[in-house]
């Protein structure tokens, strides 16, 4: 504190602020803009009237001091220092009307940024000073609470009920196979019928001619099948001859020896 760098004397500061300004610890600042704002405040004038040149001097002196003390200086503080050094030289040199943006404009922008940050810093302080819930004002510790209770309402129709019962019945009924008596002509019947007619017919006759004319539908199909088997049986016994001109052609038969 005794070896205060000359730059800090540029603006008169209250003892407490001088102490703040001398805390050579970057942890205290939220970045270079924050440091600049703190330094600007030490000028003790409205931010709209601060001397940017003086502010630049303060900042550069501060960084120089830190480096002299071999303290680590974060890169963004050094970038700001380099930019401010450039701004300082531009502000000090004779004005070049061609230069765009002009140093004055750059200085104005810096000033505007500092004003905005200062406004938000102050706003934050005022916000935190308000009557806050849990610190200054209190809510009920254990409110009853408003509850929405969902009541399940089950829905089913009489049809659902009956259909379900039908399925249960169907699933568990003892399985009974009911075989209906179907009209058939047995082999015995066909054999008997064919034996009776074979003696009557003398010449070759088609198998279908031996079928009863009044048989139709399933009964006729059954009669065809059993008569065919009967014809084969009679041929095996040597009692009839069979002939057929080709596959699927009509089957003819006649009695042996006629």
């Amino acid at each position: 504190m005794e070896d205060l760098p000359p730059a800090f004397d540029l603006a008169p500061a209250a003892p407490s602020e001088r102490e703040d300004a001398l805390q050579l610890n970057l942890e205290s600042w939220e970045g270079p803009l924050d440091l600049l704002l703190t330094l600007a405040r030490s000028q003790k004038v409205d931010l709209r009237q601060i001397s940017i040149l003086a502010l630049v001097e303060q900042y550069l002196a501060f960084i120089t001091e830190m480096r002299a003390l071999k303290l680590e200086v974060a890169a963004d503080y050094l970038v700001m220092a380099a930019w401010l050094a450039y701004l300082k030289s531009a502000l000090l040199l004779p004005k070049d009307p061609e230069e765009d943006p002009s140093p004055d404009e750059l200085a104005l922008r810096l000033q505007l940024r500092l004003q905005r940050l200062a406004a938000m810093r102050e706003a934050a302080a005022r916000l935190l000073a308000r009557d806050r819930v849990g610190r200054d004002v209190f809510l009920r510790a254990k409110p009853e609470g408003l509850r929405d209770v969902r009541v399940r309402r089950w829905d089913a129709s009489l049809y659902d009920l009956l259909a379900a019962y039908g399925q249960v019945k169907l699933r568990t009924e003892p399985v009974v196979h009911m075989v209906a008596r179907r009209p058939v002509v047995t082999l015995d019947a066909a054999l008997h019928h064919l034996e009776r007619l074979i003696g009557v017919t003398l010449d070759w006759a088609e198998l279908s001619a031996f079928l009863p004319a009044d048989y139709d539908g399933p009964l006729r199909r059954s009669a065809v099948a059993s008569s065919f088997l009967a014809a084969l049986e009679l041929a095996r016994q040597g009692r009839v001859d069979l002939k057929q001109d080709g596959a699927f052609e009509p089957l003819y038969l006649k009695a042996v020896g006629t």
Partner: protein
Amino acid sequence: MSAIDDLERAIEAMLFASDEALDARQVAARLGDEMTPGAVRAIIVAIAERHAGSGVELVERGGHWHFQTPADLAHLLRRERDDPRKLSRAAAEVLAIVAYHEPVSRAEIEAIRGVQTSKGTLDVLMEAEWIAPAGRREVPGRPLIYKTTDAFLQHFGLTSRKDLPGIEDLRAAGLLDPVDLAFETAMGELDLVKDGEDA
């Protein structure tokens, strides 16, 4: 309303913000013990009287005071909402069995359904208030037996259980057809409709 003095305001706020009911002695201690519990109690009673008949009550339980909402307004704090759910197939089967065979035990229901019945299924039907326990069967193990309720008759539009169609009625209605056959029949009718349209 007459102005409320600072002491009364302070005690009221304390009782409001406290996470437990407070007695007069505790309140007096928090106020710095400058008042007797008796004097504090008188103020608490005044606060309770001020709130009487409003939507907020200060009540005493065993010497401790706390704010609460009046019991007659409880229905406003707990709102019931319908949550309609379709009865599951299994639950419909169990319900039908109870209706056709009541009273029945769970074991009997399982015997009729041919599959195990979860406890949850019976619970759902009891929650719907369509079935209710109807005593115990006097057999070993004394199982609970169930029957349908008046709410069941009401929901399904039945005057009595005798209104339930008999087995032959179900058969005639096609409800005893295997599902796939019934499906084909239904599809056949659809085909007929289509044919008719084409013609």
